């Protein structure tokens, strides 16, 4: 009797602990959003919103005229992210499919941990690889003189997004009930047909979630792109142009900006735009996930 009372207290304590952890996460998110908003809004006392979002020139420390247009940076961020996804998604899904369906279990036992270790490489190290290894290689392949451009950033971010995409896609492929595959094979489908037409569609929600998480990583990554993309402020006209991403700009300028100036507030406004962008990505991912889950039911 006494014991059950004690365990009841214990249980409610544990429940309270988990509840407070959950609430804390929400509070932190709301706190960050409010701080970001409160620090970003004063920027628009001096900068027109449409000028901020749609002008190409960013030069807050200019001795001529300070300019606060972030369009080039938005395009730079999107360019690098799109490039990295174009590389990482096909490769990631292929590796996941290989690991879950084709590879011998011994190979899988080796390859999967190796892929996961890839996720642990610090971003500075990846950026350094971009400077000394990929940069010169890209310069030689495309005859551009230097390799500090969006291609370089895309390749590096693809490397960084791969572990997430592979790991989660593989998990969701493995979670497909074995009966699906067996039924497909029993109907005379080949292994390739089974994989492409049955298993991957069945695991699609997980795979899309994996790609979205990879995309989140790519949009928010700072150090790697800061080191490898050249950070030129010009509007990029292609993947072979040097780009400056929004994250890199915040990292470069926040350290020295005089506090409580328009420039300072504008940097937070960039952060807010970035936040809104990742928020939209997450919402889209959520909508897609729900759509597919409903269809499965």
């Amino acid at each position, binding site marked *: 009797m006494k014991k059950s009372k004690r365990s009841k207290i214990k249980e409610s304590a544990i429940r309270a602990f988990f509840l407070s952890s959950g609430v804390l996460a929400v509070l932190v998110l709301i706190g960050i959003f409010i701080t970001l908003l409160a620090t970003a809004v004063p920027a628009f006392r001096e900068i027109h919103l449409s000028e901020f979002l749609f002008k190409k*020139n960013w*030069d*807050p*420390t*200019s*001795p*001529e005229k300070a300019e606060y247009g972030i369009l*080039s940076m938005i395009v730079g961020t999107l360019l690098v992210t799109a490039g990295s996804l174009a590389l990482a998604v096909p490769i990631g899904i292929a590796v996941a499919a290989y690991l879950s369906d084709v590879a011998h279990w011994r190979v899988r036992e080796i390859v999967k941990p190796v892929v996961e270790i890839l996720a642990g490489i610090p971003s500075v190290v990846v950026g350094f690889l971009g*400077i*000394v290894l990929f*940069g*010169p290689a890209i*310069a030689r392949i495309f005859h551009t*003189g*230097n*390799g*500090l451009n969006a291609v370089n950033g895309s390749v590096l971010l693809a490397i960084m997004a791969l572990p997430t995409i592979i790991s989660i896609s593989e998990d969701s492929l493995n979670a497909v009930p074995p009966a699906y595959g067996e039924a497909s094979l029993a109907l005379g489908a080949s292994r390739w047909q089974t994989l492409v037409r049955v298993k991957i569609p069945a695991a699609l929600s997980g795979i899309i979630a994996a790609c979205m998480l990879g995309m989140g990583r790519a949009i928010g990554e700072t150090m790697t792109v*800061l*080191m490898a993309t*050249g*950070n*030129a*402020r*010009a*509007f990029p006209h292609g993947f072979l142009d*040097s780009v*400056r991403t929004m994250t890199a700009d915040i990292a*470069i*300028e926040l*350290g*020295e900006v*005089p506090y409580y100036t328009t420039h300072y507030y504008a940097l937070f406004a960039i952060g807010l735009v970035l936040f809104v962008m990742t928020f939209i990505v997450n919402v889209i991912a959520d909508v897609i996930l729900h759509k597919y889950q409903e269809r499965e039911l």
Partner: protein
Amino acid sequence: MKKMLITALAIIGLLASAAAAAPARKMIQIKGSDTMVNLVQILAEEYMSLNPAAAMAVIGGGSGTGVTGLINKTCDIANHSREWKPKEMDQAWEKGVSPRFFVIAVDGLSIIVNGKNPLEKLTMAQVGALYRGEIKNWKMLGGPDKAVSLYGRQSNSGTYTFMQEHVLVNKNYSTDMKEMNGSAQIIESILQDEGAVGYVGVGYLYDKDGKIRSGLKILNISKEPNGQAYSPLDKEAVDTKKYPVARPLYQAVNGRPSGEIARFLMWETGPEGQKIVEREGFYTIGGDYQAQNEKNFK
């Protein structure tokens, strides 16, 4: 369970006593210019080996970072390769910080290109035009038909500001300029890129054996279009300001320096410190800077 508790307590006790035993000496924080960070690091190490009681930490981040650090009192000495802006002086006074400046070395800011570039010299006006984006092909300067690829520092760098004020005559940099994280990165890029031009402090031109990095070409610069061009490696030209982009490298402290900070500054600007400045590829301070330093010690 009990055993574990005792072990844990013992470990905590040990850690606490170790922390208490550590000498409670004050760490002198030095922050700022990336051009100066290597030099000051070596100066600080030498000084600490001569004075074991002194403790110093040197970090980079750019002149702007150092200046902001001194104003916000997060560092004791700010390294800066440009002068303070009026806005920064105002901020300092508002916060009760009265900076004093000491010149610890002189830098010949070097304009460098890839070793395969046939050009030997440029005028100040030409360098300015290059960085403003007005000259986009080396052909326009009598070089090969190759696109100019500009390398520079980021806006928190004193070198960036110095170039903008003195070479670009307060005009905007070309937006095509690639903004690099540090001088070493500029050099690495220039070694690979045949169309490149960049600017770095003279101390960065040397490899660890004290020789000029192979594959780099250091341009001679002339003040006037038809004037004599000088190299930043020419000590006399830098001293006499015939080399047009020479500049002093400063350290700033809050108020009249005292204690360990004063002794360190004295030592740096004295013969022993200056010998190291020379060994690291920068130039020693001349008479007028010395006189200026003397005044600021009082």
